[in-house]
C-alpha cells in the first residue's frame, strides 16, 4: 500500500462574493434564492480563473447556518450542479454558524494539506431574510434545566450586552465611535475601488419591477455620525449599549473562495493571493461568545510560532463593536489601529452569517497585495454558542525592505 503522505502548502487563489443585501421584504434579494447566490459566485470564480479546468475541482464545501429550504439539500453539492460544474465534482454542506465559510476553508484546506485534494471551492451563504436567525431550531431543554447555557445566550445581542458587563472599560461611546469609523473606512475603500473588484453582479427580479443587476452592497450607511448613532434604541436591554448602529445587521449574501495546494496552483498557473499559515478554533462561555476570537487567536499564534506583533493586518468580523474592542483591548491594540479592518467591517457591509469568513479573506488578500510591507495577517471571528475562529495567512507579495505606509519607525509600528 502506498502512503504518499506529506504536508502540502495551501494557497488562497481567489475569492468573490455577492453584494450583500439587507434581509427582509425590501432587501435586494427578497425574491432571490440563497443557492442561486452561491451559484453566481462559483461561476464568477470559474470565469476569473479560466486556466482551471472545472473537472479539477476536488470538493465544493458551502456553509449555511440554517440548512433547510433554499439552503438545504446539501448546498455544496446542489450549488456545484446548479453552477454547471461536472457531475464528477463532489460537494457538501457545512455549519459553524458565523464561521461557516471560514470552517469550509479550513476543513478543505486540511484536506489539501493532507494530500486528499488539489483544488477546492469553499464558501458560505446566509439568506437571513429567508432564514431568520434561529428559525426552526429546537434547543434542548437541558440547556436550561441543567444551566448548561443561559437561554438568553442564544440571542447574540444579549451576549454583546454581557460583554459590556464583563469589560466596563468598553463604553457605548467607544463602540459608537468604532462603528462610525467602520462606516467611514468602508466608504473610503469603496471610493478607492478596493471593494468592487471582488463582487459578483447579481441580477434579480422583483414582482412589478423587472430585472435589475445588483453590483453594490446594500447595508452600508456612509456618512454615519456619532450623533446619528446616539439616539438609536438598545433593543436587547433597556438603557443598554448595543444598538443597530454598533452591530452588524441582518443580511443576505454569499461568498466563495478558490483554494489549492501550492503545487496544483503552480501546475495550473493559478495566481496565489495568500498562503495559509495556521488556524485554530476555541470555545468560550456561550454567554460571552464575542470574546471567542481571543483564545482562538492565541491558539493559532502559538501553533504558528508567531506573536501578535508579527501580525501586520487583522480582518476581524464586526458582529458587534464591543466584541471587536474586547479583542483589541486584550492584545493592547488601539481602537483605531491602522492594522485593523482597513476597509471597514461588518458593521458597515453586513454579516450574512455563514458567508462572512471568506469576505474577511478576500479583503485581507487585497490588502496584502497593496501592502507588501506586511508579511502575516489574520482573519478572525466570533461564533454563537461561544466560539472563536482564527486563520493566519502569509502575504506572497511580502517584501522585507518595504516599510508600512505612514509608519514613522519600526518600533512605534509594533507597539504590542
Amino acid at each position: 500500500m502506498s502512503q504518499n503522505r506529506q504536508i502540502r502548502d495551501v494557497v488562497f487563489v481567489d475569492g468573490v462574493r455577492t453584494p450583500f443585501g439587507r434581509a427582509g421584504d425590501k432587501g435586494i434579494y427578497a425574491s432571490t434564492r440563497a443557492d442561486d447566490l452561491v451559484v453566481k459566485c462559483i461561476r464568477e470564480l470559474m470565469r476569473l480563473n479560466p486556466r482551471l479546468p472545472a473537472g479539477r475541482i476536488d470538493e465544493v464545501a458551502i456553509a449555511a447556518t440554517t440548512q433547510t429550504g433554499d439552503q438545504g439539500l446539501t448546498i455544496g453539492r446542489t450549488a456545484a450542479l446548479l453552477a454547471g460544474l461536472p457531475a464528477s465534482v463532489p460537494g457538501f454542506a457545512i455549519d459553524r454558524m458565523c464561521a461557516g465559510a471560514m470552517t469550509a476553508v479550513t476543513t478543505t484546506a486540511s484536506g489539501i494539506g493532507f494530500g486528499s485534494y488539489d483544488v477546492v471551492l469553499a464558501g458560505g451563504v446566509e439568506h437571513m431574510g429567508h432564514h431568520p436567525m434561529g428559525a426552526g431550531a429546537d434547543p434542548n431543554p437541558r440547556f436550561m434545566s441543567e444551566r448548561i447555557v443561559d437561554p438568553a445566550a442564544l440571542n447574540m445581542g444579549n451576549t454583546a450586552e454581557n460583554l459590556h458587563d464583563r469589560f466596563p472599560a468598553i463604553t457605548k461611546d467607544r463602540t459608537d465611535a468604532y462603528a462610525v469609523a467602520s462606516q467611514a473606512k468602508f466608504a473610503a475603500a469603496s471610493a478607492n475601488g478596493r471593494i468592487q473588484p471582488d463582487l459578483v453582479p447579481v441580477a434579480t427580479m422583483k414582482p412589478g419591477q423587472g430585472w435589475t443587476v445588483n453590483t453594490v452592497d446594500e447595508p452600508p450607511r456612509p456618512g454615519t455620525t456619532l450623533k446619528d448613532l446616539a439616539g438609536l434604541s438598545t433593543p436587547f436591554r433597556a438603557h443598554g449599549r448595543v444598538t443597530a448602529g454598533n452591530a452588524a445587521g441582518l443580511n443576505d449574501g454569499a461568498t466563495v473562495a478558490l483554494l489549492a495546494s501550492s503545487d496544483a496552483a503552480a501546475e495550473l498557473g493559478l495566481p496565489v493571493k495568500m498562503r495559509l499559515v495556521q488556524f485554530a478554533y476555541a470555545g468560550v462561555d456561550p454567554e460571552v461568545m464575542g470574546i471567542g476570537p481571543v483564545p482562538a487567536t492565541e491558539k493559532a499564534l502559538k501553533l504558528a510560532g508567531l506573536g501578535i506583533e508579527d501580525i501586520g493586518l487583522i480582518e476581524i468580523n464586526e458582529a458587534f463593536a464591543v466584541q471587536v474592542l474586547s479583542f483589541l483591548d486584550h492584545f493592547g491594540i488601539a481602537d483605531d489601529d491602522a492594522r485593523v479592518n482597513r476597509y471597514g467591517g461588518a458593521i458597515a457591509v453586513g454579516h450574512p452569517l455563514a458567508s462572512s469568513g471568506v469576505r474577511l479573506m478576500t479583503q485581507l488578500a487585497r490588502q496584502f497585495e497593496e501592502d507588501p510591507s506586511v508579511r502575516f495577517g489574520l482573519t478572525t471571528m466570533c461564533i454563537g454558542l461561544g466560539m472563536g475562529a482564527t486563520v493566519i495567512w502569509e502575504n506572497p507579495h511580502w517584501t522585507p525592505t518595504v516599510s508600512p505606509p505612514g509608519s514613522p519607525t519600526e518600533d512605534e509600528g509594533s507597539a504590542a
Partner: protein
Amino acid sequence: MSARDFQQLTDLFPDEVVTHSHVQDIALPGVDGAPGAGTFALITLDNGLDHRRPSTLGPNTLVELGTVLQAQRERAARGEIAGVGVTGKPFFLAAGADLSAVKELKDKEAGRAMARLGHDVYSTLNDLGVPSFVFINGMALGGGLEIALNANYRTVSTGAGALALPEAFLGLVPGWGGVYLLPRLIGPANAVKVMLENALSNNRTLSGPEAFKLGMADALFEPADFVEQSLNWAARVLAGAESVSRPNAVDEPLSGENSAAWDAAVDHAKAFVEAKTSNAAPAPAKVIDLLEKGRNFSKAESFEAEEDALAELMMTPQFRDTVYAFLDLVQKRGKRPAGAPDATLARPVTKVGVVGAGLMAGQFALLFARQLKVPVVLTDIDAARVDKGVGYVHGEVDKLLAKGRISPDAANRTKSLVTGSVTKDAFADADFVIEAVFEELEVKKQVFAEVEAVVSPECILATNTSSLSVTAMAEGLEHPERLVGFHFFNPVALMPLLEIVRAPKTGDAVLATAFATARALRKTAVLVKDAPAFVVNRVLLRLMGEVFRAFDEGTDAHTADNALRPLGLPMTPFTLLAMVGLPVAQHVTESMHAAFGDRIAVSANLQALIDAGKKGLWEKAEDGSRHIPADTLALLSFGTTPSTGEELLAKTQDALAEEVGLMLAEGVVAGPEDIDLCMILGAGWPMHLGGITPYLDRVGASERVNGRRFHTA
C-alpha cells in the same frame, strides 16, 4: 406610436391580461478595466403571473411597451442612456400575440390596427437613437420572437426553448416584421425553415443553441447568469470591444449569389407547402408571397404588405378554426376529456399483460414498458412466437439506444420489464391486460375468458378492437364491468390519440383507470360510446367509401383521388387505403355496412383487389408519376355515371356532415369538438379545417344535410 391612435383597439380588450413593461436603469459595467459607459435601460416584459401563464401580447400590452420605448427614445436624445434592452420574466420572453384576443377581432380594420400597432411599437426598437438589445431568456413565439428580430442585437439563453414563428401554422404570417427581417438576418433558406418548414411540421420550435446557430442571436449564454452576462456583453458591444459577426445575414442590395439563394428558397418553400398542405390553407402561401415580393421591398413596403396580409388572414375562417383546433381542442379539451369519470377513482396499474406477441402486441409492450415503467408480459401460443415478440421489443429498445434517444440504463430497465410467457398464468398479478389478437369476436371472447380465469377480479381487460362490439365482447364475462375499449392508432408510439370505449357495463373505476393510463402513456384520450368503428375509422371509412363509390361508378382514378385536395388532408384516399391495408379497410367497412346498411358501400372492386393480393391502386413510375397498372385495371369493373371532382367533393362533404350528424345523434361522443379532436390527433387532419365540423359548417354541408350547423356562427 401614439397611444391615442389605438384607443379604439385597446378599448376592445378591457380584460386583457396585460404584460407590463417594467424599466430599470442599470449602470453598465466597465469593459477591460475602463469605467462603465453610462446607463442601460432594461425593460422586463412581465404579466405578473407565475410560470404557468406565459406573457402574451395584446393591444394594451403593445401600447404600454410602445409608450415605454418612446420614453427611452426621449431619454436617449437627452443623453441619459447609452442603450436599451428588453427581456422577459423567468422562462419567457413572450409567447406571442394573445390568440384568443386576436380571434375576437371582428372586422378587417381592427385586424389592420392590430398589425400596425405591432409595427409601430417594434419599429421604435430600431429608432431609439441608441442601440437596442433583446435578451431572449426563454420562450419566444411569433410576435414575441419578432420583438427580438426588430432590435439591433440579440442574446439568447442556452436554456431557452420554444423559439419559433408559428404563424403559418396558426393561419397568419410573421407580420410584425418577421417575414422581412428574418431572411435578411439568417438567410432566406434558414428563414423558410423557421417560418414554414418548422411551423408546418407539427409546429416544431428551436432551442436557444439552435437559434444561435442559425444566426437568430449574436451571443449565447447559460441560464444561471444569463441577464448578467447579456448585460456584460451589451456593455462590450456599446464600448466597441465586441464585434458581432452574422455569417448568414444577407446584405442589401442582394448580390447575385444571394439573389439566386433567395429564388431557390422561395421555390423550395412552394414545393414544401404544396407537399405538406396541398395549398389548402391560405396562410403559408401568403408567407411565401411576402417572402418572394419582399426580396425587393423596402422595410416600409414590407410592413404595409404585412399589414394587408394580417388584416386579411385574421378574418379568414381558417385562422379562427385553427385557433379553435389548437387552443380550445388540443390544448384544453384534450387535457380534460369530456365525460371522463372522477380521476380519483383510478386504480394503480403495476403490471400489464399483453395477449399476443405479434407486431401490434410488441408495439403495446414497448409503449407500456417505456411510459408506465411497470413489468409487461407478452403471451402467445408457442415459445417461438413469444420469443419473436419479446425480441422485437428488445430490438426496438436497442434502436432507441443507438439513436441516443434513451440512456443505456433506461434501455436495460425497459428490456428487463418486458418478458414473455406461453401461459396466461403470468397475468395472475397483472392490473391491466390488453389483447392484440385476431380481429374476430369469438377469438377475443375466448381469450378474455382464459384471462379472466387467471387474473384478480379487479384486473382491467382492454381490447384494441377497431371494428368489433365491445358490448358483445363483454357478454359471458364473469365481470363485464372490467372490460373497456382501448383503441390505439398506428404507429402506436407516434399517434397521439386513444379512443377509450365505454360499453354499457363498463365500470367507472375501470374507465377512470383507462383515462389515467392513457395520460401516463402520454396519449390524448377521447371517451367514445361503443358504436361501430368508433370515431376516426368511421369518418375515414365513410370518406373513403364515398370516393371508392365514385370510382366504382366510373370516375377516373385521378379525379376521384384528387377531389378532396381542397381539404388539405395529409394523404389522398387511395394512399390512405394502401397504408391502412386493403383487407383491414374492407373488414371495417363490412362491419359498418352490417350496422348501417347501404350508407356504407362495400366495394366489389376493392374485394377483387384483395382477392388478387393487390396492396393498392397506384404504382409509381420512375418519373414519379402515378398510374394504375394494366393488370390491376383488368380486375376492376366500372359503372357509367362518373362524377366530376367538384361533384365528388360536395358529395363527400355531405356524406361527412351526415355521418357526423348521425354520430352525434347516437351519442357516440359528447359533442362535435370530440369528433374534431379525434380527426386532428387520430388522422392528422389539418387544424385549418378545425378538425372537420367547422369546415362542414363553413362549406354549408351541415345545413344542406342536417338543416343546421354543428357550431353556432
